[in-house]
């Protein structure tokens, strides 16, 4: 056991920190959020230059062979700088989908383009009634000659308007919530029958409703077994929970740092407000919350490779629970300790708070994971 970064990992962290300081300060981030796309192809190209877009893919597939620790390092940096680029969705999640679901030919066809920053491939797996239940899929995939016809509506597709292609979950058999009978289909955003409506999100990003009206795809567009896509989605979700937990830790760390700085400099009643004991202890409680979340993000990271599904998912649920609790506390208190200034759009800490809030809404919120974990035999077992 060893929590120290390797030399390579340290270099990765440093290069990201330098990039963010040089190229992605809060001003630029806000300007990008204000564009219709809410992201910047130029930034994406910079990330590609840094090697990030190919990071988690195997070298054999055209990636750089990064593992969970590398992903954690990137996500923490993305969190700190509030980067709105879809690295989490188009690289981590998509990468896990392809790694666990696609055959080598499919990977060879897709990964180099993704790694080059030329292909934005995101998952279109949400539906309104499903919320976070991956198995709840109403979109239909009907077999036709030489392929499939897709009909339905996918929602909350991350940066769906900017994506080049989607991985769409659609039902090839079974009831609406049956775990069997879900297929994963590659669909071009510009394919006939696909229409996309984009929405701004509170964290500065974009999501889209993607409507599929008699969209036809070839048989080769299926990733994996057309009836057994769910385990692939679940595995990718687990891995992405580890990644987004690291992002939350990066944001919380930044929020704490900003708050402590503010406490040291802001004067009220004739003294720096950081000299008030109540605010000191609140900041200490924020520190405790950040460190607890960091510990669980580490646990999630080290559990990414865990092959036992239940053990792995328990780790992810526990991490998401701790991160959700810490994030609520840290986010709310960062605002409270700043006072009014943090309520303004121009100030970074409010946006850190909002992204923390929205991270809870992705891949299952606090209640979702608590309910799931509570239904298991827990983390400790009986005596």
């Amino acid at each position, binding site marked *: 056991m060893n929590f120290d970064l390797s030399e390579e990992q340290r270099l990765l962290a440093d290069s990201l920190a330098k990039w963010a300081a040089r190229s992605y300060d809060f001003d630029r981030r806000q300007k990008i959020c204000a564009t219709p796309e809410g992201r910047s192809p130029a930034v994406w190209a910079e990330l590609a230059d840094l090697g990030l877009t190919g990071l988690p893919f195997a070298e054999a597939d055209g990636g750089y062979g990064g593992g969970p620790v590398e992903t954690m390092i990137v996500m923490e940096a993305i969190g700190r700088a509030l980067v709105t680029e879809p690295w989490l969705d188009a690289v981590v999640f998509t990468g896990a989908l392809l790694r666990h679901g696609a055959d080598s030919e499919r990977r060879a066809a897709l990964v180099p383009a993704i790694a080059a920053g030329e292909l934005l491939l995101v998952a279109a797996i949400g539906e309104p009634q499903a919320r976070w*239940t991956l198995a709840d899929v109403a979109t239909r995939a009907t077999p036709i000659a030489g392929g499939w016809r897709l009909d339905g509506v996918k929602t909350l597709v991350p940066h769906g308007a900017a994506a080049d292609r989607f991985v769409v979950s659609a039902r090839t058999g079974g009831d609406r919530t049956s775990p069997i009978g879900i297929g994963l289909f590659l669909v071009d955003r510009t394919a006939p029958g696909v229409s996309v409506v984009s929405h701004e999100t509170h964290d500065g990003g974009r999501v889209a409703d993607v409507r599929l009206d008699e969209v036809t795809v070839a048989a080769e567009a299926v990733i994996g077994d057309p009836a057994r896509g769910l385990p692939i989605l679940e595995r990718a979700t687990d891995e992405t929970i580890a990644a987004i937990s690291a992002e939350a830790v990066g944001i919380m760390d930044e929020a704490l740092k900003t708050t402590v700085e503010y406490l040291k400099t802001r004067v009220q*009643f004739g003294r720096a407000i950081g000299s008030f004991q109540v605010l000191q202890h609140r900041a200490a409680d924020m520190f405790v919350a950040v460190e607890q979340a960091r510990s669980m993000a580490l646990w999630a990271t080290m559990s990414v490779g865990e092959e036992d599904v239940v053990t792995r998912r328990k780790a992810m649920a526990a991490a998401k629970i701790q991160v959700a609790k810490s994030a609520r506390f840290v986010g709310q208190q960062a605002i409270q300790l700043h006072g009014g200034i943090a309520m303004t759009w121009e100030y970074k800490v409010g946006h850190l708070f909002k992204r923390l809030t929205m991270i809870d*809404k992705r891949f299952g919120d606090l209640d979702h994971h608590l309910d799931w974990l509570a239904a298991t035999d827990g983390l400790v077992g009986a005596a």
Partner: protein
Amino acid sequence: MDLRFTDDEIAFRREVRDFLRASVPAAIRAKMIEGRKIDRDELTAWTRTLHARGWAVPHWPVEWGGTGWDPIRRMIFRDEIQSFPAPETLSFGTAMVGPVIYTFGSQAQKQRFLPRIADLTDWWCQGFSEPGAGSDLASLKTRAVRDGDHWVVNGQKAWTTLGQHADWIFVLARTDPKAKPQEGISFLLVDMKSPGVTLVPTRTIDGGWEINEVFFDDVRVPAENLVGEENKGWDYAKFLLTNERNGQARVGISKARLKRIRELADFPPDGAVAPLRNPAFRRRLVELEVEMRALEMTQLRVIAAERGDGKPDPASSILKIRGSELMQASSELLMDVMGPAAAIAHGDDGDDGVDWTRGGAATYFNLRKLSIYGGSNEIQRSIIAKAILGL
């Protein structure tokens, strides 16, 4: 000790409710439920409806349009308005500057301003806080210097809510720079159309435009617009801030929100599995309902004490703290009920008429302000420790 409402009080509640049912436009109620902003025209129209019924300024002296209701009736009225939900009148006029004017103002000021406040002919806003002085009001820097029969005002105010609609602003300004921080401050009424007044919007994290900065650059204010005595403004400000402390409980608003949560959790419009089928969710909801009831009972105690021997119940100091915490917790639960779709940021002005998540996360973000302003909750705790517990 008799702990029930009288028959008269129950009948009064019914009368108010019937009036609201008959008078509040459906579109306004929908906006209130969805946490969307009521615009100036809508609030003006609604204030005039109330005014026509004689209920626009119930707590004012009868000669200026008040009703003569006792504190219990005033509480019932407010609770019904909030939980209906219907808009309350503009507090900067009816609850803040109005009472200052009828208590400390000249007869001329009363005649000139009060009727126009009551029917919202004049929209008022508040000029207290400054960028460098949030909770620490005594350190304000805006100054007013006497020049003939005018005061010349220079300085900057911040966090001026709804100033974009305002005709008038009431301002605390330093008139004796040599006095101690809390002395030498005066209370001025300033026409927003005066030359030298500039308003700059402050966008808030929920994406809305609710607050503003107001700059004063050699603004000339007629001497007759000084309220009460020169250099006594701090006293009037304290009167204003403690005047409607009960209002900070906002029990009716939380009640309306809890009702909405229960409804959405029972039949979520996105067709999801109803959260209300989850025992853990139900517990979370009833825990807030219990807090709501406890706050409501505490408010009743405070109000009954007002009506009784007049000694304020020490419990009044908890209304701000618990009221803001409950508003925040209920807005968080409402956002949670909306699930992942709460992430979508609907513009405030748009009205696509279908999206049930509008105002969910935005309200949660916006309401963080409640534990910051009006004396932060930290300051409220210090007040309890010192004034009530003697620490």
